């Protein structure tokens, strides 16, 4: 029983991380039909923003030393700022391009950012300690769970609740949902396109910063490729969740996290090396059965 509970918590916390990532990608896809492959690099950038640029082996922690009430908002601001900037400088110019072109542009942006970090910080992973107390385990119903897992799950649930309220109850939320449903029509009806898109980018950037903080706390490491894995799985989650469906992406993020943990826990040792093959195998089966994704929104159908 305790063992099962432990697995549930492992699955929930990993799923939360993927869900946050998927949310960041789905939001932008919703308003712009852009799959932002630079999202993983936004995550890495936010983590490196806590360090002073240097190519020395030992990291010089800079902003990372700030008290948490200052550090968290600062990093969210960095994430949002970076994301908004990338919209203004890069993606705005591709507004009317086809989605494949925009995707390539996001690859290019990610590549440029990764190499910018490489130049400033070198390829060696850097170490950083954030909130060591979050590593301590707490006991819940007999299962010993690191505090960070609990915090990750709580943060995800709070973010999801806040975002749902925002999307359903505020004017901006309404505009964003309208834009996601049919962008051209929304514009004709008076939705401010730039405002909505910038807002989506800002939220997405903040989500990237949040993931960065969680990853850095968990691993104690800043690495230029650290966002790549989460980004890839988050992208897959948005696809099997049904491209364009924000709740679908979140649900699929949780599903993939759960699948990964369950395969890790149940596969025999020899097969565990191929855990990801099993996870992606499951993804392929889902797509064969439901090519449009699990929760495809009506708006995903080809627009005339």
């Amino acid at each position, binding site marked *: 029983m305790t063992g099962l509970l432990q697995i549930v918590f*492992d699955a929930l916390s990993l799923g939360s*991380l993927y869900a946050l990532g998927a949310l960041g990608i789905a939001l932008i896809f919703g308003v712009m039909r852009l799959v932002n492959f630079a999202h993983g690099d936004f995550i890495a950038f936010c983590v490196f923003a806590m360090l002073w640029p240097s190519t*020395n082996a030992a990291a010089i922690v800079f902003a990372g030393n700030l008290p948490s009430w200052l550090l968290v908002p600062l990093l969210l601001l960095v994430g949002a700022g970076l994301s908004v900037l990338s919209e203004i400088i890069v993606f705005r110019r591709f507004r009317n391009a086809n989605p494949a072109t925009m995707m390539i542009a996001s690859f290019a942006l990610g590549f440029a950012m990764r190499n910018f970090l490489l130049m400033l910080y070198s390829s060696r*992973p850097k*170490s950083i300690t954030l909130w060591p107390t979050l*590593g301590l385990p707490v006991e819940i119903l007999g299962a010993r769970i*690191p505090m960070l897992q609990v915090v990750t799950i709580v943060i995800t649930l709070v973010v999801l609740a806040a975002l749902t309220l925002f999307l359903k109850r505020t004017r901006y939320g309404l505009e964003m949902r309208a834009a996601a449903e049919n962008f051209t029509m929304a514009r004709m009806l008076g939705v401010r396109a730039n405002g909505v898109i910038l807002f989506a980018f800002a939220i997405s950037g903040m989500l990237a910063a949040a993931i960065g903080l969680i990853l850095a706390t968990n691993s104690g490491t800043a690495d230029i490729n650290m966002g790549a894995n989460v980004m890839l799985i988050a992208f897959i989650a948005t696809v099997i969740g049904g491209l364009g469906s924000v709740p679908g992406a979140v649900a699929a993020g949780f599903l993939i996290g759960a699948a990964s*943990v369950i395969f890790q826990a149940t596969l025999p040792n020899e097969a565990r*090396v191929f855990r990801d093959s099993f996870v992606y195998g499951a993804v392929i089966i889902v797509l064969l059965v439901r090519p449009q994704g699990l929760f495809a929104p009506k708006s995903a159908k080809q627009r005339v």
Partner: protein
Amino acid sequence: MRVMKLAGGLAALVALWGTPSQAADDIVVGFATAASGFMQAYDKPAQDAAMIRIDEINKAGGLLGKKIKVVTADTKTDQAEGAKAGLAVLDQGADLVVVSCDYDFGAPAALQAQAAGKVSFFLCAESVKAGIQGVGPYSFSASVLAAVQGASMSEWAYNKKGARTFYRLLDSWTVYNKGICDGFDWQLPNLKEAKLVGSDTFKNDDASIASQITRIKSLPKEPDAIMLCTMMPGAVSAVKQIRAAGIKSMILNGSSMDGSYWLNAIPDLSNFYVPVQGSIYGDDPNPKVNEFNKKYKEATGADPSSQYVYPGYVMIDVWAKAVERAKTTDAEKVVAELEKMNSEPTLFGPRTFTKELHHQNQGRYLIIGTDNGKPKVVDEWTISSKIPVDYLVSK
């Protein structure tokens, strides 16, 4: 006829252009290594150490009475560029081609050297393929096989720390990681009372290894030692999560986790051990190593960040000795001299090369123990028997 003349002229020109340095009567060492891209951080330190040895030799009158000249070409951390870089240094007359630290990134240049009939050395590759098996009979590696690290740590922990129950945790990302665990697998049956109580895998970039930790925690008794086969950057994350979960078992890893630069991620880390060829912490039992560390700092402005600077020094050292003995830089004769080396002493442990293996399947390791976040030399260990080449190749 005119075409023939032209071609002949061109060929002569190419020949002249291709061998300018030999005319200058120098011995040329060519570095086809990464000066940019992510491998740069790993190649540069070992290359700096190699330069120190080259300077020492030049100051002492050179090699065979000639100065050693260095030429370089950037592989840009790219395999296709690696082959080009290999050709570039060969074109400049390299007698020895030094290639990238990692097997996959170094092999393209090493293959070029092999094709041109020149000796090549991997700066610090620790796969059995880095040598005869993967490149050819003129290829060597300056480091010690990853398998020796796993075998050394388990045998040392069994004999000196009384470890009886072992848990094997493999990061399936690289061949290096697998190599450590292969050495551990080979050694374990030789340790009479040792028992493997569990085994698991993870991936270096896993966002969390919570489920792997759950498996360790569900064992009836905490294992005496965890053989962790991993490397940066995931290694720090794995160790941090294991300790955060309250698992106090001794953690053994390969040399890839040497260095204090990452310790601030886990400030109070204890009961953590890695094997190294020499100590960067100023407490090496050999005072000459500590002298080298000082020289390194003078040359580069920083202390060595990990033991991976040392193989660069060893490489030039053993190659130069072989050249002295062969009295020529001719590859075949130098290789023959290198293959005669049996426990040849170097600053960083003995080196043996044979006709079957241009790598170390046994080696003296210092054991670095970290206690309360402070790493220091705690012991020294050489595995009791060589890991058979057949076993290494079969893996």
